[in-house]
């Protein structure tokens, strides 16, 4: 007779048999070289080749989901974030067209919520969302083929609460490079010295009756109030890298005159319009897809909500540059500002202060009354 105990044993053994292959690693039907990639937190990116002569590979990535309370502004406002690898946005993952990504998505048992990942660069299965739903204490492995070059966002997409997970920080970018690297649209190669990955995030923090931001004991407790603020579509914060000031002051980005920077900008939920104050976009893939020729000499470009864009720029003049969402209310009042300190020699040909601020000559319109104050 089958006792309850033996039945449970049977289930346990069956579970062991079923999961056994997972411990041995996934079946390798592709027979391609493998490479494990160690991810780097934004605004930086793991080292990678810009162009490659090697054949396709399987690149192994691992994202560990972390739910955690973070501070999002200088006033110390606390916010329950959901993150891939602990950063808002999650890390950028780079591979080449024709490569495969083998992604391990880990949801540690310390988390409270199921999560998954929808990769806009992937084809089928709701971008992987249908095949990666992991509860706390579970992990899943997804393999997908990079068939289109460009920068693409990824984000969490759990049924019923997608927007909440996304605006809580669960988004990042995949960069699929053409195998022979970036081109200017006329077949000439383009090269960058470094990548800055800017992940913009609209945040919706509930306030109490006195207008003060509310804090919550747990992530779950913040859900109802946060959703109410979200439904009004007006963010309380609009930030790069998860908090106001994440990329300014001591955290400002750095570059040198003559250096070429690829600025990748993503917003998983809401439109934004990047602008480099004092600079330009030399080559801009506004929609982020490298099979389209880049636009040249742009002042401001539009990154549509739910996408990533890329801009290549060579610094020509030293100084402090502000990189902003040029809805300046969002840049200055809500936080969407980064600074780039650029070292190098000043070029008078590009700009020169011919006359410093001083009084308007007395005979000209707008001149002050002719009574110089002396003391």
């Amino acid at each position, binding site marked *: 007779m089958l006792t309850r105990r033996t039945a449970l044993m049977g289930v346990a053994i069956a579970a062991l048999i079923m999961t056994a292959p997972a411990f041995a690693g996934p079946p390798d039907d592709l027979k391609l070289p493998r490479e494990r990639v160690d991810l780097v937190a934004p605004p930086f990116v793991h080292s990678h080749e810009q162009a490659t002569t090697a054949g396709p590979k399987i690149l192994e990535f691992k994202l560990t989901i972390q739910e955690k309370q973070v501070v999002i502004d200088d006033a110390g406002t606390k916010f329950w974030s959901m993150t891939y690898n602990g950063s808002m946005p999650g890390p950028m993952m780079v591979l080449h067209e024709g490569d495969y990504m083998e992604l391990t998505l880990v949801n540690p048992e310390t988390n409270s919520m199921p999560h998954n990942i929808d990769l806009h660069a992937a084809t089928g299965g709701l971008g992987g969302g249908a095949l990666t739903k992991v509860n706390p204490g579970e992990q899943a492995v997804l393999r997908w083929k990079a068939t289109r070059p460009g920068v693409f966002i990824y984000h969490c997409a759990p049924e019923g609460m997608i927007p909440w997970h996304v605006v809580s920080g669960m988004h990042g970018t995949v960069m699929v490079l053409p195998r022979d690297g970036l081109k200017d649209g006329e077949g000439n190669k383009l090269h960058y010295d470094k990548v800055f990955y800017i992940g913009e995030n609209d945040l919706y923090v509930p306030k109490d009756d006195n207008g003060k931001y509310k804090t919550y004991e747990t992530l779950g407790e913040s859900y109802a109030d946060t959703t109410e603020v979200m439904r009004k579509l007006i963010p309380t914060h609009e930030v790069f890298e998860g908090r106001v000031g994440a990329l300014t002051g001591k955290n400002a980005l750095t570059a040198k005159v003559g250096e070429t920077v690829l600025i990748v900008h993503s917003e998983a939920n809401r439109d934004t319009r990047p602008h480099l104050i004092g600079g330009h976009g030399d080559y801009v893939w506004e929609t982020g897809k490298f099979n389209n020729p880049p636009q040249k000499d742009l002042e401001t470009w539009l990154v549509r909500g739910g996408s990533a864009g890329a801009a290549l720029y060579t610094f020509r003049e030293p*100084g*402090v540059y502000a990189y902003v969402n040029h809805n*300046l209310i969002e840049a*200055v009042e809500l936080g969407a500002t980064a*600074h780039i300190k650029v*070292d190098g020699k000043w070029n008078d040909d590009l700009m020169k202060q011919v006359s410093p601020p*001083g009084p308007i000559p007395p005979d000209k319109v707008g001149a002050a009354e002719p009574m*110089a*104050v002396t*003391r």
Partner: protein
Amino acid sequence: MLMLMKVKLALVAGALAAPVLTSVLTSAPAHDPDLTLRLSSVTFSYRAAGDFSRNGKPVAGPLRDVRLAADLVIMESLVTAGEYAACADDGACPRVPLPDALDVPIVGVSWHDASAYAAWISQRTGVMYRLPTDEEWTLAAAEKARDEVLPLVDPADPAQAWIARYEAESARSRPNEAAPRPIGTFGTNSNGLLDIGGNVWEWTNSCFIRASLDDGRERITNTNCGVRVVEGAHRTYMTDFIRDPKSGGCATGIPPTNLGFRLVVEPSPSVVSGLARNVTKLLRRT
């Protein structure tokens, strides 16, 4: 050295304004708004506020030995939320958001709000209060006044100083606590003033100036009284209607955490006679 004397100036004026004074004292919270300190006029080192240039090149504001014309009578502590609320309740000060506890400095006030309070408290007490000048504040702040000379921009290569200035401004430490703290939290300076250089910056009456120092002579080429000198853990300049300072966009550095104020007393007749004595002393010395 500085002669220090705690004076209840309101009591001096009490004979004139006794009924009004009684109502002030009963409606006031635990902290005494009228507690002022008298600082005797001495020579002190003062870095002129504003933008200065010599032969078209930016230079640091001149450092001068300064002596006030009279003793300085200044509030020991910042004006509190409770005191400001009384002015707002009277309809004399614009309403601003108040904290739950009213025994902390009022913050989130503009130069206009502070000036309205000074006018109101002067009328109520019969004592003429006003915001201090930057020189007066510096004397009162004593060792807490910061002489921060930022790197100067060389027009031939503006970026070097610009980056250095950015780094200097970014390196300023930010108070750990942004919310205003009870009076006295940030200690007493050598003159007995409370909370100088804490997490509240103070409005002064001094206007922003631009001046040239050519031929050893200071010539003010522009005075903008829409922008006033603000003092605290660092000196800065603020548009007079700003209540909540912030940086962002092109603005760099760490802005004042909060804007509040304390007031000084205009010399009363008895003070004026003291001043006359001082002037006589000074004349004798020179």
